[in-house]
């Protein structure tokens, strides 16, 4: 992700505190990350010059590199908010043991992931996921328990639930990117604009290319008549608005109760 021009920075307590806090949250939106950075400077070193967020994170990443951990930046698939997540990059014997979840819980997640990847919409209904509970590895799990486990994954920001259907959280996409590409090479979808992994988005009805909603928003931002970037056919879906942090701040208060309804085009 990062260029190889990155020099190894020096971590101060500011960076360490920031990292610890990010560890606690797992994933944060950009505005929160900025606030966190400010907070860390305030706690440890008021006089230090505040690094640019990008450099600040690069400094941490340069140290984390040897541990195969990285702070990755991504964008939420539905409304395009920038997010930062601390992700693990390597599978080692240690990482296999250090999981928060039991074997059958992980298997449930894997199965849900499979359904999500295989689905056209990027969503898997809870009914379909729960129907797979009998095939889980490890300890037997009841449907009721499986529901709790799914909720746990939602709480820990690995899954998002919308109207009884599950999709991957931005955090999971950032972390599982490599895994998904390797494990489902023929089912994986890629955005035609940014070329990164796509779980939910819009697709051209003629040629079938897919685009992230935020990418669609940016790409068609100025065009009144959207056409598919691949086959130039008419783009039949509603073009969402571009994410605007300024506007977001104004509407931030009322956001929770008027979330845009999920677009189910594909």
């Amino acid at each position: 992700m990062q260029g190889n021009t990155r020099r190894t920075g020096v971590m101060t307590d500011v960076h360490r505190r920031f990292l610890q806090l990010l560890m606690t949250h797992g994933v944060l939106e950009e505005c929160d990350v900025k606030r966190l950075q400010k907070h860390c400077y305030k706690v440890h070193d008021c006089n230090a010059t505040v690094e640019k967020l990008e450099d600040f994170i690069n400094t941490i990443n340069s140290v984390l590199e040897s541990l195969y951990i990285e702070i990755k930046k991504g964008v939420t698939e539905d409304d395009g908010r920038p997010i930062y997540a601390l992700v693990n990059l390597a599978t080692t014997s240690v990482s296999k043991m250090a999981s928060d979840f039991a074997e059958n819980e992980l298997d449930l997640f894997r199965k849900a992931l499979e359904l999500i990847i295989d689905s056209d919409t990027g969503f898997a209904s809870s009914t379909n996921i729960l129907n797979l509970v009998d095939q889980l590895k490890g300890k037997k799990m009841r449907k009721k328990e499986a529901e709790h486990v799914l909720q746990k994954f939602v709480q820990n920001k690995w899954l998002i639930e919308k109207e009884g259907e599950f999709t991957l959280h931005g955090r999971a996409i950032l972390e599982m990117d490599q895994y998904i590409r390797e494990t489902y090479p023929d089912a994986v979808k890629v955005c035609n604009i940014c070329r990164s992994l796509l779980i939910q988005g819009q697709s051209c009805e003629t040629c079938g290319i897919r685009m992230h909603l935020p990418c669609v928003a940016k790409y068609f931002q100025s065009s009144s008549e959207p056409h598919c970037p691949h086959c130039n056919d008419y783009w039949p879906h509603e073009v969402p608005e571009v994410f605007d942090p300024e506007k977001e701040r104004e509407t931030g208060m009322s956001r929770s109760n008027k979330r845009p309804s999920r677009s189910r085009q594909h």
Partner: protein
Amino acid sequence: MADENGSLREAGAGGKTRAQAVVTIPSSAYFLKQVEEEEEVEALKVEVAAASDTESDTSSDDLSCGKADIDPSLLERVDEEKCRSIRKQYRQLIYTVQQNRDDIVNTASDSLTEALEEANVLFDAVSRTREAALDSQFLVLASDLGKEKAKHLNSDMNFFNQVAFCDFLFIFVGLNWMEDDERDPLNNCDDNIALSFWETVQKEATSCISQAETFHFLFGSFKPESAARKPRRNHRRKVQKMEENGVMPTKLRKLDLSGNQEATEKEVERILGLLQTYFRKYPDTPVSYFEFVIDPNSFSRTVENIFYVSFIIRDGFARIRLDQDRLPILEPININLAGEGNDPSFHSRKQGVISLSLQDWKNIVAAFEISEAMITNSY
């Protein structure tokens, strides 16, 4: 008293005659104790006499195992004063402990230990059974109190004394509860002190709570075999399976309504036939909506008609609009025109019913002077 002495002597003699001296000593001690209790208020003289008597007996008992050559009477005289003071001290000790019983049990003081230590010092000077009996009497009392204290000990950690906790908390942060006349130091002091209070508490509390969150991740926690998963299932088959799942509810919905739907459809078609007959008869005059739907003889029939006509309008066989008097009328849609761009499916398919109360219906029947239903009953 004489009797007692006699009995004591008997006991002592009995003890001597028996082989085991061990048995006799407790028994004589028992008598001693009894004597002690009874003579508590008796004259000193009698006590001395009794004491010397019993003493000579018991000491001879004690010494019966080889030390008989020491003159017992000599020993007695020396110790008598001292023994009395020991007994007095013991009684004093027992008395004070009993008086302070509640305090000793309920507070966390060391007073019981102190009393025991005092008794220990006293016991160093004890040489006779009589004083020793007092010592054991005190010991019984002390162990009683000990047991009670143990009962009071809070063994389940759920118990929480708020007042005590507050006291400790204030002492901990350096605020003295007692210094303040009012019982609320936090409210009296200024914000700075309150702030420093919470800071101190926070500093202490954080050290007790391990806050460092560990790194949570999913990638890499999967079993290796899951990564090398079986060849992907046929996608199409999967889609099919999903569709099968999806078919179920559709089927159900149809099944649910089919009976109803058919009856409605039939009725709608019949009414459409009536309407079209009317339109054919008078191709240029639209029909009043109310005159068409209202059955002057039946309110419920009217409501049904309104419902059926809504389908006719939805399906584009007729149009509803307001005439110059702003009354709703039904108009035919030219079938020929419908072919060319006036495709009914192109219209926004809207369907609506109006609300109609029983009174409305009566009013309309009166106002329009409807005497006969246009939609005749089919049965």
